[in-house]
């Protein structure tokens, strides 16, 4: 962000506050562009991955091997008729996708894209992210309620319960990384992972293999993060075969595309957090190697986690809503607490 401010100042804008505001606006637009491009890429990747897992090909006709498929889909969504149900609560109906997207978008203010490429490298970065991402609950409830549709109401309620419950295992497992680095600042957590077992660094420095509790925390985080992003096996709010599209049934065209965009944005957030806290952030797996820039490693590792989320979607059936709650409160939360205890003891006694 500092670099952006300096760039703007070099262009001739001298007042500090103006330069800062312009830099922020430019950054916000860039993030939005990144989200759009990432969604484009992720949808295509998901369709290809799902196709090859199911012994089929996925999109093949639009562009070479279907690369332009998502663009075609976006054009279709943009040109669709915008239908608002007669008895729907109009202001809430129109606002819901934006509130949902807002909850996800605000996180990008503190999400790192590389070693020095964070908008605001807050000292409480991780804490801010977990807090702000709860705003999506409001968006979902608004969507479900304002649709004036019994099925959407069910879906909205279930989704709200799910997101609120799974915040806890997410927070507790991320706390493991915080404990090992003694700081909530994400750069500090990554720097802490440059040396690890044996002092060599590289792959062996990554948090998730430092001690068995950290590994369990990594698995718990992946499961809870998938639930946060409303993906199968936890996608009850949008389960296609049970409630048609759940909370988002009445949305069509671009409004629905916003929900979709928010889901992929969420997936990316989960992936980047997993990478930063457990997989060594922008450190390269080969010790001492500095040729490849840090952000490429970050992107590759985050894409790997995104791939794991997609892989899980096409493998497992869906959990029922009460089983979802049982998994969260009776299994994941106690395990997460136990992890914190374990990591604490490990750090004190084994070092």
């Amino acid at each position, binding site marked *: 962000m500092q670099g952006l401010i300096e760039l703007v100042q070099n262009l001739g804008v001298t007042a500090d506050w103006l330069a800062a505001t312009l830099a922020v606006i430019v950054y916000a637009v860039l993030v939005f562009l990144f989200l759009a491009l990432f969604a484009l890429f992720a949808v295509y990747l998901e369709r290809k991955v*799902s196709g090859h*897992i*199911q*012994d*089929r090909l996925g999109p093949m006709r639009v562009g070479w091997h279907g690369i332009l498929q998502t663009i075609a889909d976006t054009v279709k969504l943009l040109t669709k008729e915008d239908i608002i149900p007669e008895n729907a609560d109009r202001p809430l109906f129109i606002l819901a996708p934006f509130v949902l997207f807002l909850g996800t978008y605000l996180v990008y203010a503190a999400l790192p894209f590389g070693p020095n490429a964070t908008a605001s490298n807050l000292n409480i970065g991780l804490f801010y992210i977990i807090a702000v991402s709860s705003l999506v609950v409001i968006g979902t409830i608004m969507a479900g309620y304002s649709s004036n549709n*019994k*099925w959407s109401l*069910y879906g909205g309620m279930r989704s709200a319960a799910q997101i609120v419950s799974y915040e806890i295992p997410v927070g507790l497992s991320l706390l493991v990384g915080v404990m090992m680095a003694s700081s909530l600042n994400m750069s500090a957590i990554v720097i802490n992972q440059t040396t690890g077992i044996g002092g060599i660094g590289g792959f062996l420095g990554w948090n998730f293999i430092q001690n068995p509790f950290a590994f369990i925390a990594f698995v718990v985080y992946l499961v809870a993060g998938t639930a946060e992003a409303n993906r*199968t*096996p936890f*996608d*009850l709010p949008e*389960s*296609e*075969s*049970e*409630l*048609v599209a759940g909370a988002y049934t009445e949305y069509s065209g671009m409004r629905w595309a916003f929900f979709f965009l928010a889901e992929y944005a969420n997936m990316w957030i989960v992936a980047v957090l997993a990478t930063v806290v457990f997989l060594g952030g922008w450190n390269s797996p080969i010790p001492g190697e500095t040729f490849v820039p840090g952000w490429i490693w970050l992107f590759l590792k985050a894409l790997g986690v995104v791939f794991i989320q997609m892989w899980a*979607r*096409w*493998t*497992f*059936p*869906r*959990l*029922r*809503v*009460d*089983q979802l709650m049982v998994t969260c409160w009776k299994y994941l939360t106690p395990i997460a607490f136990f992890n914190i205890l374990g990591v604490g003891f490990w750090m004190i006694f084994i070092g």
Partner: protein
Amino acid sequence: MPDIRTEEMVINMGPQHPSTHGVLRLKLRTDGEIVTHIDPVLGYLHRCFEKHAENLEYPQVVPFVDRCDYLASMNNDHGYAMAVEKFLGIELPERVEYIRVIFAELQRIASHLVALGTFGLDVGAFTPFLYCFREREMILDLFEMTCGARLLYNYIWVGGLSHDIPEGFVEKAYEFLDHFEPKIKEYNDLLSYNKIFIERTADVGTLPADVAISYGATGPVLRASGVDWDLRRDEPYSIYDRFDWDVVVGNDDVGSVGDCWNRYYVRVAEMEESAKIVRQALDQLPVDGDVKEAIPRKIRPDKGDLYFRSENPRGELGFYLVSDGSPKPMRVKMRSPALANLGVIDEIGSGWLIADVVAILGSLDIVLGEIDR
């Protein structure tokens, strides 16, 4: 303080829904999310099969019978052909009987593959559906090679078959069996013993044995409730008594007897048993015999009536024929197994969540073409 009034919500799982297998309408009365009563509404696919049959001659009814249960056409043809043959008292050559058994059992495997795939889809597992259809594609290729059609065959005629099996059929059938038997282990790995799937289906929608018998449920639904009854072994028709195979009955290794998991698992195990029967039939297939020699020139049974039942992949398929001496039947009534199986849904579906109703409906394996005829 006024009493809190809770009202029941009536939800319509309408005729068009991704999870009701076909055009079935279910009226659910729910209290919150728990279903208190289910009313199925039928008739959206009624095509007047029985009325048509009154105006057609006996051999012309066979394509119509195909279309009733379109996922198990060969078994439907087989049941009807055997009913009319019993009426006329025809003896069939050995080769015809063996080929009929091979095709009926292959069709049973294909039908169960669809049932498993769509059941997985109902509970949210998208991938087993495509794996099941891949194997089913190979079976349909075998059928297409023999009679030219992939879904509605008109192959098993009264008194014989429409074509003899072509060159290379036996080799391809053995190839298919060798390819298919390891696949069952794959389905078990991916779906049957998966913890999430077990959580979704074990102990859900338990059907006690006496309730099943009183509703007239048959087929895998009855066997999963612990009742050891299979028409192919207990009232053998055709040449089923020459083969060595087991009847699969529900157990309580995972969940309890009569729950959704057992209904699903009985079908998986039945596919293995059918593969065994096909292999034995292919081994024992007589090399010569004319498949068309016993087909009567004109079918004109004596006055009277007859009820004949056979084992469909969904249960007991019955045909009640009434003849008045003319070449056209006076009445053909089809006893549809899926209709009797659907009757239990109110008993076993009440008291569960909506998501469970979807799973229970999927485990009953209904085909609307057969229910509505």
